């Protein structure tokens, strides 16, 4: 290769312990690399990892990166010193919250403190009404006064959130401009830019997060782009699963706080799509917790999430997290029931079987004791596990319960499974989806160990374990689409928006959002898709329905029927006598990434069983075949099987069979099993 081949694409996921790097060439060939993270400056490991994975003379066209810099700055409270500007009378907005406490039955009430210091909160004389009308005008003198007040503090970033700014952004804009002009170094956030949706506390909290992580993120991105100066384009994965330029991510870093877990869901959706599945439930089981999410073709988004106890009102992939993972500790409660988690042995000391000082039995120890996690094949055999120690730890617990150790180990796994099944019910049944219509896509270090059992509890029939299950987030980043989401609260009767007096206003709003998208995303033109959030007048929660509306067309389809069908499915009734209200409209602007061929899997080869072992997969000791993933073929192999590979282990119980297709493992439950 004489000339530099600038077609390579690289995905990078920074985790707490490892940085995962994956490279793909135009021919679809893929390479992976794992190196230790450098938490003091994560860009170092990224720079090193990207250099290491690129061959001589090879340069990357683009690096797509999921970053935890904003997340960590937030969770570790290492962000910027904020000034918070709001309507006079509401200076304490971030302390008022929603006036609730997180734990109902705790004598000590504990709340997360806001990200702002009380001494840097300022009220301004101005007031908008609920329709965006000006009740009290914002004067230039008032603007100058507050700018001066802030300049007397040590603030590094300014967050502006005024009442009803979601309807009318003018006051916020004027303030923002004045702050920008006064001091260029200040990172400025206006709430309407972050989210043009109502509910002042949630919008203020989201804006404060943006300002708090802003300066940290800006410094980090500067270092990163310097280290990757050879790369044509550096992009960042956002919490909603679309990617943006590093520059944009620096302006609105609040969109990156859930970037890591989003990569995994995007990877799961892509893997499923490769073999023709649309409806999936992703199941990412790690050391301390498990993330589950439901997708129908695309990941499901929500604007009602929280991070570190603070509300976050921007679109993120709807991921539900439960505190049960491989490191979760098993114990007996005061009433004599066996519990698992949320306390975790974490990575350090880790499970007893790691031999690094862990004493209490964990989920991983139960697997090791029973044999489902073979001690000699962990991380491709690079680390040996101590089965005797794991068994002894389980035995101690067994004595407390007056049961055998084997029964206790199986019990630990059952309890963990039931906690995870409950999480899946939250994202499926509670939201009107029947898990039986979905394929379970399992990844993360421990996902494959539990997937089939979990599927049995939920009566699901198919489990997909994607290629590279341990680094699926990086895979997802590699192939994510460029996407931004813009929304605007409307809160007007639907009929009036379709053909009445509000029609023109909605069209103008749409035109505005489209032009923002075009302007911010540049060429080539992004594809726009609109959804309308609808509810019956008087309700509080809306249902998003896809619409074919455009800013230029006069006639719009009436989405009422679609809305009502969904309402019936979710809540079991229709209120035909009620008006429907348009809550907000949302534009998802996407620029597609050209499809590259998927890497060829090794198909239709005879499977290589490396050995037979006596293992307990939950129903007593039985003969189980142990094989490597690379050894599996396109022909079905019947369980019981344990499939090992570098980044994960999968258990295929009796009653299931497994095939390898396009590099992914597909396990199917036999009829009646």
């Amino acid at each position, binding site marked *: 290769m004489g000339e530099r081949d600038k077609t390579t694409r690289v995905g990078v996921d920074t985790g707490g312990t490892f940085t995962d790097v994956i490279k793909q060439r135009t021919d679809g060939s893929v390479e992976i690399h794992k190196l230790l993270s450098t938490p003091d400056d994560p860009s170092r490991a990224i720079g090193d990892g990207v250099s290491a994975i690129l061959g001589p003379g090879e340069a990357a066209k683009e690096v797509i990166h999921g970053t935890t810099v904003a997340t960590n700055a937030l969770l570790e409270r290492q962000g910027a010193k904020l000034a918070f500007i709001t309507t006079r009378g*509401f200076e304490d907005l971030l302390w*008022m919250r929603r006036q609730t406490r997180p734990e109902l039955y705790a004598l000590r009430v504990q709340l997360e403190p806001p990200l702002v210091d009380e001494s840097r909160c300022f009220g301004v004389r101005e007031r908008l009404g609920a329709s965006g009308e000006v009740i009290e005008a914002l004067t230039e003198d008032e603007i100058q006064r507050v700018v001066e007040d802030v300049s007397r503090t040590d603030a590094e970033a300014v967050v502006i959130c005024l009442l009803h700014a979601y309807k009318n952004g003018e006051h916020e804009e004027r303030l923002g401009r004045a702050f920008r002009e006064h001091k260029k170094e200040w990172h400025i956030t206006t709430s309407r830019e972050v989210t043009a949706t*109502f*509910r002042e506390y949630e919008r203020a909290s989201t804006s404060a997060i943006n300002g708090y992580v802003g300066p940290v993120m800006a410094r980090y991105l500067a270092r990163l782009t310097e280290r990757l100066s050879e790369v044509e384009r550096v992009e960042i994965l956002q919490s909603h699963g679309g990617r943006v330029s590093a520059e944009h991510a620096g302006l609105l870093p609040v969109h990156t706080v859930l970037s890591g877990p989003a990569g995994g869901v995007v990877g799961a959706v892509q893997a499923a799509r490769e073999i023709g599945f649309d409806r999936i439930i992703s199941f990412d089981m790690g050391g301390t917790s498990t993330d589950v999410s439901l997708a129908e073709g695309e990941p499901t988004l929500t604007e009602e999430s929280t991070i570190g106890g603070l509300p976050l009102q921007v679109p993120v992939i709807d991921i539900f997290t439960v505190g049960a993972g491989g490191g979760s500790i098993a114990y007996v409660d005061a009433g004599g029931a066996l*519990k698992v988690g949320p306390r975790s042995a974490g990575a350090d000391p880790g499970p007893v079987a790691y031999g690094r000082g862990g004493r209490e039995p964990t989920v991983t120890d139960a697997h090791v004791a029973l044999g489902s996690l073979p001690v000699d094949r962990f991380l491709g055999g690079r680390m040996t596990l101590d089965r005797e120690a794991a068994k002894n730890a389980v035995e101690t617990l067994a004595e407390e319960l007056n049961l055998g150790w084997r029964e206790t180990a199986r019990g630990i796994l059952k309890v963990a499974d*039931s906690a995870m099944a409950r999480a899946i019910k939250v994202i499926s049944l509670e939201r009107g989806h029947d898990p039986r219509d979905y394929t379970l896509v399992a990844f993360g270090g421990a996902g494959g160990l539990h997937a089939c059992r979990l599927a049995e509890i939920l009566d699901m029939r198919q489990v997909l374990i994607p290629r590279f299950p341990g680094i699926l987030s990086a895979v997802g980043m590699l192939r994510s689409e460029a996407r931004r989401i813009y929304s605007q609260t409307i809160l007007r009767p639907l009929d009036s928006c379709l053909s009445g007096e509000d029609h023109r206003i909605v069209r103008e709003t749409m035109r505005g959002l489209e032009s923002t998208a075009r302007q911010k995303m540049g060429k080539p033109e992004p594809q726009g898709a609109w959804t309308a959030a609808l509810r019956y007048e*008087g309700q509080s929660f809306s249902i998003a329905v896809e619409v074919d509306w455009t800013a230029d067309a006069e006639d719009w389809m009436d989405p009422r029927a679609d809305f009502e069908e969904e309402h019936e499915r979710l809540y079991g009734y229709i209120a035909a006598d009620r008006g429907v209200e348009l809550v907000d409209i949302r534009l998802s602007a996407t620029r597609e990434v050209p499809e590259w061929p998927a890497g060829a899997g090794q198909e239709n080869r005879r499977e290589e069983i490396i050995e037979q072992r006596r293992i307990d997969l939950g129903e007593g000791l039985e003969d189980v075949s142990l094989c490597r993933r690379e050894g599996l073929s396109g022909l079905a192999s019947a369980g019981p099987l344990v499939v090992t590979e570098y980044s994960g282990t999968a258990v295929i119980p009796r009653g299931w069979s497994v095939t390898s297709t396009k590099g992914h493992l597909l396990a199917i439950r036999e009829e009646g099993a």
Partner: protein
Amino acid sequence: MNPFELEVYRNLFASIAEEMGVVLMRSSFSPNIKERRDFSCALFDGAGEMVAQAAHIPVHLGSTPMSVAAARDAVEMMPGDQVVLNDPFAGGTHLPDITMVAPVFDEQKRLIFFVANRAHHADVGGITPGSLPLSRSIEEEGLRISPRRWSKALEEEIAVASRTPQERRGDLRAQLAANRRGIVRLQEELQRRGPELLSAASALQEHSEKFMRRTLSAMPQGEWEFVDYMEDDGFEAEMIPIKARVSLKGDRAVVDFSESAPQVEGPVNVPRAVTVSATLYAFRCLADRDLPSNGGYMRCIEIRTRPDTIVDASFPAAVAIGNVETSQRITDVVLGALAQALPERIPAASCGSMNNLTIGGADSRHEGLAFAYYETIAGGSGAGPGFDGQSAVHTHMTNTLNTPVEALEHAYPFRVEEYSIRRGSGGEGEFRGGDGVVRRYIFDSPATVAVMTERRKRAPYGLAGGESAAVGVNLLIRADGSSEQLAGKTVVEVKAGDRISMETPGGGGFGALRFQK
């Protein structure tokens, strides 16, 4: 049942109760339910003992089992039936709380479970919009429904009685849908798991009982008493004592309220169900968080009340405010007695009032359409051994959300001018009580405002030498600038340009200040 199946079934039942809650919250129409989440959902076994409850509102904790019992006694339920009630003297708490109970049958048509949900409706009639009036008898508080089978006619009866009939119809439908979802899920599980589902329910209750017995056994033994007062009933009665004598003996607790005051004229009486809820709440807080919320642990706590008292009122006592205010005082006295037994665990008194405000009138923006709005305002939480209290948070018997100012001003003809922390209102001490809240409203058109509050004269107590918190203040500021302090419980007419300012109490301090200022 073995120790891990217990946990598997606990997850299963809890997720059904929670799913019912999601259906109710997301599909309902009044801000009370959808925004403030003033509702609860629970499952019961065929005998009416609670199997699981979603973590919603503590004041519903011990009272929903009584609703199920009342529904069973009154109506012979058939598949598909739903029984509706709100009568405080037959399974209810106060009239705005409407409960729906539905039976779950197996294939042999045996009644094996009940599902129930309770939601606070913004208006069920009565002499004041919002149905939390300054009443002298239950007859003035709105429509009273003794347990009756659901029908279209009943829906109409409720709608017609209410100032906001459309909202009532919508909320009632959401309540029906929530119960139906619970029934479907229980039947699916029954089909999959067979009769084991029933034995699991009773095993879970036994587990919870054992759990609480162990918790009680580990506590000091003895007898302690504490008395605190309701300031007034809105009429003649003042400083109305509520007295709890708590005895801890072996693995049982007895809480005796029989020396509390006779029932009073004003609406601060409570039916026994509310006293039971408040007492169970206090004990629930003492147990580890793992304790499953079901009827099992309720078996080891005996609650004694005397009929015709403020804590066990009889027909036709007025009870509108008791559920929200007296319930807080009952918690204060139970915890006050327990603090003597467990000084290293129990915090000082919290705000002690839900600071209820109801606003009703005709909305000039919508052709004079009637509206009824209800909200509660947070206060400070009490400081405790080793920790300060929190400011601006709901405590003890409630955990309802505030209504966002942007949502409120969109829906109603009044605005909020200030919403802030009331600095200095928490009690001083080695550990400081949390501060209360200032919430000031300005009205665009005439309205009827009912303010129902406590701790305006008698402050939330401090403990271990900590000072008590500041009492709350209710102010009416007329458009001309004149202002007057309102009574703790009162109904006023306001005009355009008038303001109401609610300043809520903080929480008590804990421990003597080490250095004098």
